């Protein structure tokens, strides 16, 4: 018995020692891999120059979403097709959307080897600070000729910090997506109403629905601000408001110089929207429980509403679901002031990054470059194998016979989304195709503050107090439930008492710094 115990103790001690060693081993290997990644970049570059054959290396991608059934088959086809050019063993791993960001963080900090990952603008500074990604200026110069050519400069600028580029932007419709909203086309046509392109035509639509369709809510939600703001007679394009979790209270007019932050509630614009919302509220254009409604989508697809917020990306889905409940239902995207000025208010939100745990960052960039090189390559990744996972019908993609449309090969595109190469499907709604064409045709300007990210670090207490006033008092006011001027004056007074001035001063300083740093004129 004693011997057994001694043996056990020994074994225990040994395991403990081993695990400590393993821990150390991890560290060194991580360092080594970091070091060797630099080396391999250099060495393969020289190998490239001498036109020697590339050695096969694995390239692993992490994306959010569901793994399509055909993924392995398609990856094998890509590996074979790129044998001479890239010689990679491509793997794509999928993590569910809700877990994605935290899981990638975990994998990176545990030193797991992978090469490319999808990331989002909100993660950019964190990823850089944690050294989760590497800067790719040199790699892009060497291997990214097509990427540089295919992706507009303003998108690269979004992902450049202190002169270093950290991500490969996706190219997709992102300009003022809030300027459009979903409308029931069948209802609009039933009453012979004109297409909705302005506040006036939208009001006409809402009013007709309110008067003639008692069971249908004219507008889900309780806010007409984007229709008011974007109307040709008003600002004409989206505005830059920020600072709140539920509702923004900071506003910068980016058409004016110098860039000055204002209390949004005190602007004339706010008052104008407020008056409009009061009108809508009194006319019964809003749903009754818009502050607590959690199931707008459900109401819309059940045919209980005539319009709601939504964009290009929702049309197909909403129309398909609506058709199941309302067979003749049709959805269209109404866009306010189509012909007016379009600007990018925000930065590019989706991009691919090269992981700092990558052993072959050079090959990863080469692959990313290959993807955007031409339509053929892009199709091979996004649509799969022609004749097997898709067919071409003119310029459109078609689901091959025998495959259920919802089982079609459907990889997550966001790390390399490229609208110029994006094919529509024959099953897509015409409203979607139109909207896509429209967004593709836009030549938007970029707002000076598009990459500005606001920090409330210095004014936490004031922020909490102001947000309480916003939630408790401003939101009911804004949506038309409170209508008197005294209500408005009281709200303004309470915001001042909560310390909004201090937030304004702090934000102004941040904006001034940003302007100075980025040479904005």
């Amino acid at each position, binding site marked *: 018995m004693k011997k057994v115990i001694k043996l056990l103790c020994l074994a225990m001690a040994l395991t403990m020692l081993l695990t400590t060693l393993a821990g150390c081993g991890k560290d060194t290997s991580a360092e080594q891999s970091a070091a060797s990644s630099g080396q391999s970049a250099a060495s393969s570059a020289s190998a490239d120059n001498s036109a020697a054959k590339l050695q096969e290396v694995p390239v692993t991608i992490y994306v959010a979403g569901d793994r399509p059934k055909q993924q392995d088959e398609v990856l094998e086809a890509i590996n074979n097709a790129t044998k001479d050019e890239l010689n990679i063993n491509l793997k794509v791993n999928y993590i569910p959307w809700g877990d994605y960001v935290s*899981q990638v963080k975990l994998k990176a*900090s545990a030193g797991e080897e992978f090469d490319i990952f999808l990331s989002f603008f909100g993660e950019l500074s964190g990823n850089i600070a944690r050294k989760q990604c590497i800067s790719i200026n040199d790699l892009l110069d060497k291997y990214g000729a097509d990427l540089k050519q295919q992706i507009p400069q303003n998108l690269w600028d979004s992902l450049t910090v202190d002169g270093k580029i950290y991500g490969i932007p996706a190219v997709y419709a992102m300009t003022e997506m809030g300027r459009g909203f979903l409308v029931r086309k069948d209802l609009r046509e039933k009453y012979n109403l004109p297409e909705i392109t302005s506040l006036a035509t939208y009001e006409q639509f809402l009013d007709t629905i309110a008067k003639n369709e008692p069971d249908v809510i004219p507008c889900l939600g309780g806010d007409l601000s984007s229709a008011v703001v974007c109307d040709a007679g008003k600002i004409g394009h989206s505005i830059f408001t920020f600072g709140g979790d539920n509702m923004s209270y900071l506003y910068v007019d980016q058409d004016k110089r110098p860039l000055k932050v204002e209390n949004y509630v005190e602007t004339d614009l706010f008052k104008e929207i407020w008056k409009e919302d009061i009108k809508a509220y009194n006319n019964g254009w809003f749903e009754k429980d818009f502050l607590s409604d959690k199931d707008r989508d459900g109401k819309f697809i059940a045919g209980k509403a005539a319009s709601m917020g939504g964009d290009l990306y929702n049309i197909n889905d909403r129309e398909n679901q609506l058709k199941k409940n309302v067979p003749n239902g049709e959805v269209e995207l109404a866009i306010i002031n189509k012909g007016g000025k379009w600007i990018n208010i925000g930065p590019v939100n989706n991009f691919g990054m090269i992981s700092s745990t990558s052993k072959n960052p050079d090959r990863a960039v080469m692959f990313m470059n290959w993807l955007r090189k031409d339509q053929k390559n892009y199709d091979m990744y996004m649509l799969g194998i022609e004749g097997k996972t898709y067919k071409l019908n003119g310029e459109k993609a078609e689901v091959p016979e025998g495959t259920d449309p919802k089982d079609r090969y459907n990889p997550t595109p966001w790390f390399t989304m490229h609208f110029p190469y994006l094919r529509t499907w024959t099953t897509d709604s015409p409203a979607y195709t139109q909207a896509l064409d429209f967004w593709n045709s836009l030549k938007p300007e970029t707002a000076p503050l598009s990459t500005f990210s606001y920090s409330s670090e210095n004014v936490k207490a004031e922020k909490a107090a102001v947000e309480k006033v916003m939630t408790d008092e401003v939101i009911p006011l804004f949506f038309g439930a409170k209508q008197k001027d005294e209500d408005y004056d009281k709200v303004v007074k309470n915001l001042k008492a909560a310390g909004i001035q201090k937030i304004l001063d702090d934000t102004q300083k941040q904006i001034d710094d940003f302007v100075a740093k980025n040479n904005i004129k």
Partner: protein
Amino acid sequence: MDKRFSLFRITNTIFLTVVSILTLFPFLVVLAVSFSDESSIAKNGFRLIPEKWSLGAYRLLFEGSVVFDAYRISIIVTVAGTIISVLITSMLGYALSRKSLKYRNVLNMIVYIPMIFSGGLVPFYMVLLKLHLKDNILGLILPMLFNPFFMFLILNFFRGLPDAVIESAKIDGAGEFRIYRSIVMRLAAPGIATITLFYALNYWNEWNLALLLINDTRLYPLQYLLRMILMRVSYVGQAAMNANVSEIPAESTKMATVIVTIGPIMLVYPFVQKYFIKGITIGAVKG
């Protein structure tokens, strides 16, 4: 009056019947919704008797071989994992329950400390990677093989067994393993049943390890797969562009998911329950 029909008994029976029906009610709603047509849910909300019956939600869950594969993986993991776990836990528990074991306090502490302090997720994940558990079915079993809390549970149960029983077995010539196998395990059946149930539930409900380790769809356990289906339903907006999700019946899918997941594990309860009554040691030692 017959005692069986006293006022108290009658009211009591009625009351308890009502309470039982009430507790059953949410479950029945779940069942009903899972068989409802999505459009009738959209129109009328949840109903106990669906206006329009539909198997759409179950069709979505069971289409292709994925769910069956997942069932298989879950069952393998649960059965194999539970058996090994119970063996390891009870063996250690038995050893530590014997006063003749030297250094048992040290061993106790070694088990106890990780119960309170954990290395955190990153080191945990690093160890799993080092052990090559990625995309490996063992990755769903090994990390959960031993639970200190269940060990202490069974340890206390073993401590409650009279020493005299074990001594008498020794006198009859039984070795340590025989005592463990033929006497302690039998006498401790209610305790073993408890930890078996706990372990089985743990293995059955585990999805986090799959999230960490499994990329291969063929190795998805059921819970992870169902969680992904739910995620897909609630992330329709974000993934709208790439997922052709128009066919997903949201509410009924959620409810069908509940039904599908609780199915097999509900069978474990009645099976284990009989051990909770039996196996009491009263009367084993007399005089």
